[in-house]
Protein backbone atom coordinates (compact mmCIF):
# COMPACT_ATOMS: atom_id res chain seq x y z
CA UNK A 1 0.00 0.00 0.00
CA UNK A 2 1.32 3.40 -0.92
CA UNK A 3 1.18 6.61 0.99
CA UNK A 4 -1.55 8.84 -0.47
CA UNK A 5 -0.47 12.47 -0.26
CA UNK A 6 -3.79 13.87 -1.50
CA UNK A 7 -5.60 11.98 1.26
CA UNK A 8 -3.05 13.17 3.81
CA UNK A 9 -3.64 16.78 2.80
CA UNK A 10 -7.39 16.24 2.92
CA UNK A 11 -7.44 14.90 6.49
CA UNK A 12 -4.70 17.17 7.81
CA UNK A 13 -7.02 19.98 9.02
CA UNK A 14 -9.18 17.48 10.88
CA UNK A 15 -6.14 15.91 12.53
CA UNK A 16 -4.69 19.26 13.55
CA UNK A 17 -8.04 20.29 15.03
CA UNK A 18 -8.09 17.06 17.04
CA UNK A 19 -4.49 17.69 18.15
CA UNK A 20 -5.82 20.85 19.79
CA UNK A 21 -8.29 18.73 21.73
CA UNK A 22 -5.56 16.31 22.76
CA UNK A 23 -3.45 19.17 24.08
CA UNK A 24 -6.48 20.63 25.85
CA UNK A 25 -7.28 17.26 27.46
CA UNK A 26 -3.68 16.78 28.55
CA UNK A 27 -3.50 20.33 29.93
CA UNK A 28 -6.76 20.08 31.84
CA UNK A 29 -5.94 16.61 33.14
CA UNK A 30 -2.54 17.83 34.26
CA UNK A 31 -3.98 20.86 36.04
CA UNK A 32 -6.39 18.63 37.97
CA UNK A 33 -3.61 16.15 38.74
CA UNK A 34 -1.26 18.90 39.92
CA UNK A 35 -3.77 20.20 42.47
CA UNK A 36 -5.11 16.85 43.71
CA UNK A 37 -1.58 15.45 43.76
CA UNK A 38 -0.51 18.23 46.11
CA UNK A 39 -3.48 17.40 48.36
CA UNK A 40 -2.48 13.72 48.33
CA UNK A 41 1.10 14.64 49.20
CA UNK A 42 0.10 16.98 52.03
CA UNK A 43 -2.45 14.50 53.38
CA UNK A 44 0.39 12.04 53.81
CA UNK A 45 2.25 14.53 55.97
CA UNK A 46 -0.44 15.46 58.48
CA UNK A 47 -0.01 14.25 62.05
CA UNK A 48 -3.30 12.36 61.59
CA UNK A 49 -2.05 8.77 61.13
CA UNK A 50 -5.29 7.38 59.76
CA UNK A 51 -5.41 10.03 57.00
CA UNK A 52 -1.82 9.23 56.05
CA UNK A 53 -2.60 5.54 55.90
CA UNK A 54 -5.76 5.92 53.80
CA UNK A 55 -4.12 8.31 51.33
CA UNK A 56 -1.14 5.98 50.98
CA UNK A 57 -3.44 3.07 50.12
CA UNK A 58 -5.45 5.14 47.64
CA UNK A 59 -2.25 6.24 45.91
CA UNK A 60 -0.96 2.66 45.79
CA UNK A 61 -4.25 1.39 44.40
CA UNK A 62 -4.41 4.01 41.67
CA UNK A 63 -0.80 3.39 40.72
CA UNK A 64 -1.23 -0.39 40.52
CA UNK A 65 -4.28 -0.55 38.25
CA UNK A 66 -4.57 0.26 34.53
CA UNK A 67 -5.66 3.74 33.49
CA UNK A 68 -7.90 2.38 30.73
CA UNK A 69 -9.89 0.37 33.26
CA UNK A 70 -10.13 3.38 35.58
CA UNK A 71 -11.51 5.44 32.71
CA UNK A 72 -14.19 2.83 32.05
CA UNK A 73 -14.92 2.59 35.74
CA UNK A 74 -15.49 6.33 36.17
CA UNK A 75 -17.53 6.59 32.98
CA UNK A 76 -19.84 3.62 33.56
CA UNK A 77 -20.19 3.59 37.32
CA UNK A 78 -21.61 7.11 37.57
CA UNK A 79 -24.92 6.28 35.86
CA UNK A 80 -25.49 3.35 38.25
CA UNK A 81 -25.83 5.93 40.98
CA UNK A 82 -27.73 8.43 38.87
CA UNK A 83 -24.67 10.50 37.98
CA UNK A 84 -24.38 10.97 34.23
CA UNK A 85 -20.94 12.24 33.23
CA UNK A 86 -20.01 13.37 29.75
CA UNK A 87 -17.00 11.54 28.25
CA UNK A 88 -14.91 14.67 28.73
CA UNK A 89 -15.78 15.07 32.40
CA UNK A 90 -15.35 11.37 33.15
CA UNK A 91 -12.07 11.29 31.24
CA UNK A 92 -10.70 14.34 33.03
CA UNK A 93 -11.64 12.91 36.44
CA UNK A 94 -10.03 9.55 35.67
CA UNK A 95 -6.84 10.90 34.15
CA UNK A 96 -6.59 13.68 36.76
CA UNK A 97 -6.87 11.24 39.67
CA UNK A 98 -4.52 8.74 38.03
CA UNK A 99 -1.74 11.25 37.55
CA UNK A 100 -2.44 12.90 40.91
CA UNK A 101 -1.25 9.64 42.46
CA UNK A 102 2.01 9.82 40.51
CA UNK A 103 2.52 13.53 41.08
CA UNK A 104 1.96 13.16 44.82
CA UNK A 105 5.07 10.93 44.90
CA UNK A 106 7.05 13.56 43.01
CA UNK A 107 5.92 16.28 45.43
CA UNK A 108 6.70 14.03 48.37
CA UNK A 109 10.24 13.53 47.10
CA UNK A 110 10.60 17.28 46.63
CA UNK A 111 9.25 18.12 50.09
CA UNK A 112 11.48 15.51 51.71
CA UNK A 113 14.51 17.02 49.99
CA UNK A 114 14.05 20.27 51.94
CA UNK A 115 16.58 20.16 54.79
CA UNK A 116 15.21 19.52 58.28
CA UNK A 117 16.82 22.72 59.51
CA UNK A 118 14.43 24.75 57.37
CA UNK A 119 11.46 23.31 59.20
CA UNK A 120 13.10 23.90 62.55
CA UNK A 121 13.89 27.49 61.59
CA UNK A 122 10.22 28.00 60.68
CA UNK A 123 9.16 26.68 64.05
CA UNK A 124 11.72 28.90 65.72
CA UNK A 125 10.43 32.08 64.08
CA UNK A 126 6.88 30.98 64.86
CA UNK A 127 5.48 30.61 61.32
CA UNK A 128 2.13 28.88 60.98
CA UNK A 129 2.00 25.55 59.09
CA UNK A 130 0.38 27.33 56.15
CA UNK A 131 3.12 29.99 56.08
CA UNK A 132 5.82 27.35 56.43
CA UNK A 133 4.61 25.47 53.40
CA UNK A 134 3.77 28.46 51.25
CA UNK A 135 6.78 30.61 51.92
CA UNK A 136 9.60 28.28 52.90
CA UNK A 137 9.03 24.64 52.02
CA UNK A 138 7.16 24.59 48.70
CA UNK A 139 9.40 27.14 46.94
CA UNK A 140 12.37 24.93 47.79
CA UNK A 141 10.56 21.66 47.12
CA UNK A 142 9.41 22.59 43.63
CA UNK A 143 12.69 23.00 41.69
CA UNK A 144 13.88 19.44 42.42
CA UNK A 145 10.38 18.24 41.53
CA UNK A 146 10.25 19.95 38.14
CA UNK A 147 12.02 17.17 36.23
CA UNK A 148 9.61 14.57 37.62
CA UNK A 149 6.62 16.82 37.02
CA UNK A 150 7.75 17.37 33.45
CA UNK A 151 8.05 13.64 32.83
CA UNK A 152 4.46 13.19 33.90
CA UNK A 153 3.32 16.08 31.72
CA UNK A 154 4.73 14.21 28.73
CA UNK A 155 3.28 10.95 30.07
CA UNK A 156 -0.21 12.37 30.50
CA UNK A 157 -0.06 13.69 26.97
CA UNK A 158 0.86 10.24 25.68
CA UNK A 159 -1.98 8.66 27.66
CA UNK A 160 -4.72 10.94 26.29
CA UNK A 161 -5.31 8.59 23.29
CA UNK A 162 -6.78 6.15 25.82
CA UNK A 163 -9.63 8.64 26.31
CA UNK A 164 -10.81 7.65 22.82
CA UNK A 165 -12.24 4.45 24.33
CA UNK A 166 -15.09 6.41 25.88
CA UNK A 167 -15.42 8.66 22.86
CA UNK A 168 -13.52 11.81 23.81
CA UNK A 169 -12.89 13.56 20.50
CA UNK A 170 -9.11 13.70 20.70
CA UNK A 171 -6.48 12.80 18.13
CA UNK A 172 -6.80 9.02 18.33
CA UNK A 173 -10.57 9.18 18.10
CA UNK A 174 -10.26 11.41 15.02
CA UNK A 175 -7.83 8.94 13.43
CA UNK A 176 -10.21 6.05 14.14
CA UNK A 177 -13.10 7.97 12.61
CA UNK A 178 -11.17 9.07 9.52
CA UNK A 179 -9.78 5.55 9.06
CA UNK A 180 -13.20 3.95 9.40
CA UNK A 181 -14.86 6.31 6.94
CA UNK A 182 -12.23 5.92 4.24
CA UNK A 183 -11.00 2.38 4.92
CA UNK A 184 -7.49 3.79 5.09
CA UNK A 185 -5.60 3.49 8.35
CA UNK A 186 -2.03 3.96 7.16
CA UNK A 187 -2.12 7.75 6.86
CA UNK A 188 -4.23 8.67 9.91
CA UNK A 189 -2.41 6.40 12.37
CA UNK A 190 1.01 7.31 11.04
CA UNK A 191 0.12 11.00 11.28
CA UNK A 192 -0.94 10.51 14.89
CA UNK A 193 2.42 8.89 15.58
CA UNK A 194 4.35 11.70 13.93
CA UNK A 195 2.35 14.41 15.71
CA UNK A 196 2.96 12.70 19.05
CA UNK A 197 6.65 12.29 18.37
CA UNK A 198 7.09 15.95 17.44
CA UNK A 199 5.20 17.23 20.49
CA UNK A 200 6.89 14.82 22.93
CA UNK A 201 10.38 15.61 21.74
CA UNK A 202 9.81 19.37 21.76
CA UNK A 203 8.18 19.36 25.18
CA UNK A 204 10.94 17.22 26.68
CA UNK A 205 13.44 19.82 25.42
CA UNK A 206 11.29 22.67 26.74
CA UNK A 207 11.02 21.10 30.19
CA UNK A 208 14.80 20.66 30.47
CA UNK A 209 15.24 24.30 29.53
CA UNK A 210 12.56 25.40 32.03
CA UNK A 211 14.19 23.41 34.82
CA UNK A 212 17.58 24.96 34.12
CA UNK A 213 16.02 28.43 34.08
CA UNK A 214 14.22 27.95 37.39
CA UNK A 215 17.34 26.61 39.03
CA UNK A 216 19.33 29.57 37.79
CA UNK A 217 16.66 32.05 38.94
CA UNK A 218 16.64 30.54 42.42
CA UNK A 219 20.42 30.47 42.55
CA UNK A 220 20.53 26.70 42.91
CA UNK A 221 23.29 26.06 40.42
Amino acid at each position, binding site marked *: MKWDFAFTAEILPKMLWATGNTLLAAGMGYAIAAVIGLLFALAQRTPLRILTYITREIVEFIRS*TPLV*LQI*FFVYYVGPEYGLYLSPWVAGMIAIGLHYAAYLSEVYRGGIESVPKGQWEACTAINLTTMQTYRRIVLPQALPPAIAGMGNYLVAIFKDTPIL*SVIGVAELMQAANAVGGQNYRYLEPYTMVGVIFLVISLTSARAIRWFEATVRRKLGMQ
Partner: protein
Amino acid sequence: MTYASFLADYGSRFVDGALVTAVQFLCSLGLAVVVANLFGLMLLSSNPALRRAAVGYVEFFRGTSLLVQLFWLFYVLPLFGITLDNFLTGFLAVGLNLGAYGAELVRGAIQSVPRGQWEASYALSMSPAQRMRRIILPQAFVTMLPAWGNLVIELLKSTALVALIAVPDLMFEARQLNNTTYLSTWTFGTALAIYYVFSRFLITPCMRWTERIMARRIGRA
Protein backbone atom coordinates in the same frame (compact mmCIF):
# COMPACT_ATOMS: atom_id res chain seq x y z
CA MET B 1 -28.51 -10.18 42.64
CA THR B 2 -25.83 -10.27 45.28
CA TYR B 3 -22.14 -9.92 44.65
CA ALA B 4 -21.62 -13.57 45.67
CA SER B 5 -24.03 -14.86 43.03
CA PHE B 6 -22.50 -12.46 40.51
CA LEU B 7 -19.11 -14.02 41.20
CA ALA B 8 -20.56 -17.53 41.07
CA ASP B 9 -22.07 -16.80 37.65
CA TYR B 10 -19.22 -14.89 36.05
CA GLY B 11 -16.18 -15.73 38.17
CA SER B 12 -14.83 -18.12 35.54
CA ARG B 13 -14.79 -15.30 32.97
CA PHE B 14 -12.60 -13.25 35.28
CA VAL B 15 -10.30 -16.21 35.79
CA ASP B 16 -10.01 -16.78 32.02
CA GLY B 17 -9.28 -13.11 31.49
CA ALA B 18 -6.74 -13.01 34.29
CA LEU B 19 -4.91 -16.00 32.78
CA VAL B 20 -4.69 -14.31 29.39
CA THR B 21 -3.45 -11.15 31.12
CA ALA B 22 -0.84 -13.20 32.97
CA VAL B 23 0.42 -14.82 29.76
CA GLN B 24 0.44 -11.44 27.95
CA PHE B 25 2.34 -10.02 30.88
CA LEU B 26 5.00 -12.75 30.87
CA CYS B 27 5.48 -12.63 27.08
CA SER B 28 5.80 -8.85 26.98
CA LEU B 29 8.09 -8.86 30.02
CA GLY B 30 10.40 -11.35 28.31
CA LEU B 31 10.49 -9.25 25.18
CA ALA B 32 10.97 -6.01 27.13
CA VAL B 33 13.95 -7.43 29.03
CA VAL B 34 15.65 -8.58 25.84
CA VAL B 35 14.95 -5.30 24.05
CA ALA B 36 16.06 -3.24 27.07
CA ASN B 37 19.41 -5.03 27.38
CA LEU B 38 20.10 -5.00 23.67
CA PHE B 39 19.32 -1.30 23.19
CA GLY B 40 20.75 -0.33 26.56
CA LEU B 41 24.12 -1.77 25.54
CA MET B 42 23.81 -0.21 22.10
CA LEU B 43 23.25 3.20 23.72
CA LEU B 44 26.70 2.82 25.30
CA SER B 45 28.40 1.41 22.24
CA SER B 46 31.48 3.18 20.89
CA ASN B 47 30.13 2.68 17.37
CA PRO B 48 28.20 5.88 16.49
CA ALA B 49 25.90 4.10 14.03
CA LEU B 50 24.77 1.59 16.66
CA ARG B 51 24.35 4.36 19.20
CA ARG B 52 22.27 6.47 16.86
CA ALA B 53 20.07 3.54 15.95
CA ALA B 54 19.42 2.87 19.63
CA VAL B 55 18.67 6.53 20.38
CA GLY B 56 16.25 6.54 17.45
CA TYR B 57 14.52 3.43 18.72
CA VAL B 58 14.22 4.70 22.29
CA GLU B 59 13.00 8.17 21.30
CA PHE B 60 10.52 6.72 18.83
CA PHE B 61 8.90 4.30 21.25
CA ARG B 62 8.96 6.70 24.17
CA GLY B 63 7.81 9.65 22.11
CA THR B 64 4.75 8.14 20.48
CA SER B 65 1.95 6.75 22.54
CA LEU B 66 1.63 3.01 23.28
CA LEU B 67 -1.96 2.96 22.06
CA VAL B 68 -0.88 4.55 18.78
CA GLN B 69 1.88 1.94 18.38
CA LEU B 70 -0.55 -0.85 19.14
CA PHE B 71 -3.10 0.34 16.58
CA TRP B 72 -0.41 1.02 14.07
CA LEU B 73 0.95 -2.52 14.35
CA PHE B 74 -2.56 -3.93 14.23
CA TYR B 75 -4.07 -1.92 11.38
CA VAL B 76 -1.13 -0.77 9.30
CA LEU B 77 1.19 -3.79 9.14
CA PRO B 78 -1.44 -5.90 7.31
CA LEU B 79 -1.41 -3.28 4.55
CA PHE B 80 2.20 -4.25 3.92
CA GLY B 81 1.28 -7.91 3.85
CA ILE B 82 2.36 -8.68 7.43
CA THR B 83 -0.62 -10.02 9.32
CA LEU B 84 0.04 -10.78 12.95
CA ASP B 85 -2.29 -12.51 15.30
CA ASN B 86 -3.97 -10.26 17.94
CA PHE B 87 -2.19 -11.88 20.82
CA LEU B 88 1.22 -11.54 19.16
CA THR B 89 0.56 -7.92 18.16
CA GLY B 90 -0.46 -7.18 21.74
CA PHE B 91 2.68 -8.33 23.45
CA LEU B 92 4.92 -7.08 20.65
CA ALA B 93 3.61 -3.54 21.11
CA VAL B 94 3.78 -3.64 24.91
CA GLY B 95 7.21 -5.32 24.98
CA LEU B 96 8.76 -3.01 22.40
CA ASN B 97 7.35 0.06 24.15
CA LEU B 98 8.36 -0.83 27.70
CA GLY B 99 11.68 -2.16 26.41
CA ALA B 100 12.53 1.34 25.24
CA TYR B 101 12.01 2.66 28.77
CA GLY B 102 14.02 -0.30 30.10
CA ALA B 103 16.91 0.52 27.77
CA GLU B 104 17.38 3.84 29.56
CA LEU B 105 17.42 2.02 32.91
CA VAL B 106 20.07 -0.39 31.65
CA ARG B 107 22.16 2.47 30.31
CA GLY B 108 21.89 4.46 33.53
CA ALA B 109 22.74 1.45 35.70
CA ILE B 110 25.79 0.49 33.64
CA GLN B 111 27.04 4.07 33.75
CA SER B 112 26.62 4.12 37.51
CA VAL B 113 29.06 1.23 38.03
CA PRO B 114 32.12 2.90 39.58
CA ARG B 115 34.94 3.80 37.19
CA GLY B 116 37.40 1.75 39.25
CA GLN B 117 35.57 -1.46 38.43
CA TRP B 118 36.11 -0.83 34.74
CA GLU B 119 39.74 0.03 35.28
CA ALA B 120 40.30 -3.06 37.41
CA SER B 121 38.88 -5.26 34.69
CA TYR B 122 41.17 -3.60 32.13
CA ALA B 123 44.06 -4.24 34.48
CA LEU B 124 43.12 -7.92 34.62
CA SER B 125 43.02 -7.81 30.80
CA MET B 126 39.52 -9.19 30.55
CA SER B 127 37.87 -9.21 27.15
CA PRO B 128 34.99 -6.73 26.69
CA ALA B 129 32.48 -9.62 26.82
CA GLN B 130 33.97 -11.02 30.04
CA ARG B 131 34.09 -7.56 31.60
CA MET B 132 30.41 -6.99 30.89
CA ARG B 133 29.25 -10.44 31.89
CA ARG B 134 31.29 -10.93 35.02
CA ILE B 135 31.98 -7.48 36.43
CA ILE B 136 29.73 -4.73 35.12
CA LEU B 137 26.35 -6.32 34.42
CA PRO B 138 25.89 -8.09 37.76
CA GLN B 139 26.50 -4.82 39.61
CA ALA B 140 24.38 -2.82 37.19
CA PHE B 141 21.61 -5.37 37.59
CA VAL B 142 21.41 -4.82 41.34
CA THR B 143 21.35 -1.03 40.88
CA MET B 144 18.53 -1.06 38.37
CA LEU B 145 16.25 -3.61 40.03
CA PRO B 146 14.21 -1.13 42.11
CA ALA B 147 13.51 0.94 38.99
CA TRP B 148 12.55 -2.22 37.14
CA GLY B 149 9.99 -2.88 39.87
CA ASN B 150 8.09 0.22 38.81
CA LEU B 151 8.52 -0.60 35.15
CA VAL B 152 7.18 -4.14 35.59
CA ILE B 153 4.02 -2.78 37.20
CA GLU B 154 3.77 -0.25 34.38
CA LEU B 155 4.04 -3.18 31.99
CA LEU B 156 1.25 -5.13 33.68
CA LYS B 157 -1.00 -2.09 33.45
CA SER B 158 -0.10 -1.51 29.82
CA THR B 159 -1.23 -5.00 28.90
CA ALA B 160 -4.80 -3.82 29.62
CA LEU B 161 -4.64 -1.89 26.35
CA VAL B 162 -4.41 -5.06 24.27
CA ALA B 163 -8.12 -5.55 25.02
CA LEU B 164 -8.70 -2.79 22.48
CA ILE B 165 -7.43 -5.04 19.68
CA ALA B 166 -9.69 -7.83 20.96
CA VAL B 167 -7.23 -9.93 22.94
CA PRO B 168 -9.56 -11.60 25.49
CA ASP B 169 -7.67 -10.45 28.58
CA LEU B 170 -9.03 -9.33 31.95
CA MET B 171 -9.92 -5.87 30.74
CA PHE B 172 -11.66 -7.31 27.66
CA GLU B 173 -13.72 -9.75 29.72
CA ALA B 174 -14.73 -7.00 32.15
CA ARG B 175 -15.90 -4.84 29.27
CA GLN B 176 -17.87 -7.70 27.71
CA LEU B 177 -19.51 -8.53 31.02
CA ASN B 178 -20.40 -4.89 31.51
CA ASN B 179 -22.06 -4.85 28.10
CA THR B 180 -24.20 -7.87 28.88
CA THR B 181 -24.94 -7.40 32.59
CA TYR B 182 -24.81 -3.59 33.00
CA LEU B 183 -23.35 -4.20 36.44
CA SER B 184 -20.54 -1.68 35.99
CA THR B 185 -19.44 -1.29 39.59
CA TRP B 186 -19.03 -5.02 40.06
CA THR B 187 -17.49 -5.88 36.72
CA PHE B 188 -14.97 -3.05 36.57
CA GLY B 189 -14.48 -3.10 40.33
CA THR B 190 -13.60 -6.80 40.31
CA ALA B 191 -11.20 -6.36 37.42
CA LEU B 192 -9.52 -3.43 39.18
CA ALA B 193 -9.19 -5.53 42.33
CA ILE B 194 -7.57 -8.38 40.39
CA TYR B 195 -5.04 -6.04 38.78
CA TYR B 196 -4.32 -4.60 42.21
CA VAL B 197 -3.72 -8.05 43.69
CA PHE B 198 -1.45 -8.95 40.77
CA SER B 199 0.78 -5.95 41.17
CA ARG B 200 0.70 -5.48 44.92
CA PHE B 201 0.80 -9.08 46.11
CA LEU B 202 2.60 -10.87 43.28
CA ILE B 203 4.86 -8.50 41.40
CA THR B 204 6.03 -6.24 44.23
CA PRO B 205 6.99 -9.10 46.62
CA CYS B 206 8.68 -10.95 43.73
CA MET B 207 10.75 -7.90 42.85
CA ARG B 208 11.68 -7.29 46.49
CA TRP B 209 12.71 -10.91 46.81
CA THR B 210 14.85 -10.72 43.66
CA GLU B 211 16.45 -7.52 44.95
CA ARG B 212 17.40 -9.24 48.22
CA ILE B 213 18.76 -12.35 46.53
CA MET B 214 20.81 -10.40 44.02
CA ALA B 215 22.19 -8.03 46.64
CA ARG B 216 23.28 -11.00 48.68
CA ARG B 217 24.88 -12.69 45.67
CA ILE B 218 27.16 -9.80 44.95
CA GLY B 219 27.82 -9.36 48.65
CA ARG B 220 25.92 -6.13 49.27
CA ALA B 221 23.27 -7.41 51.66
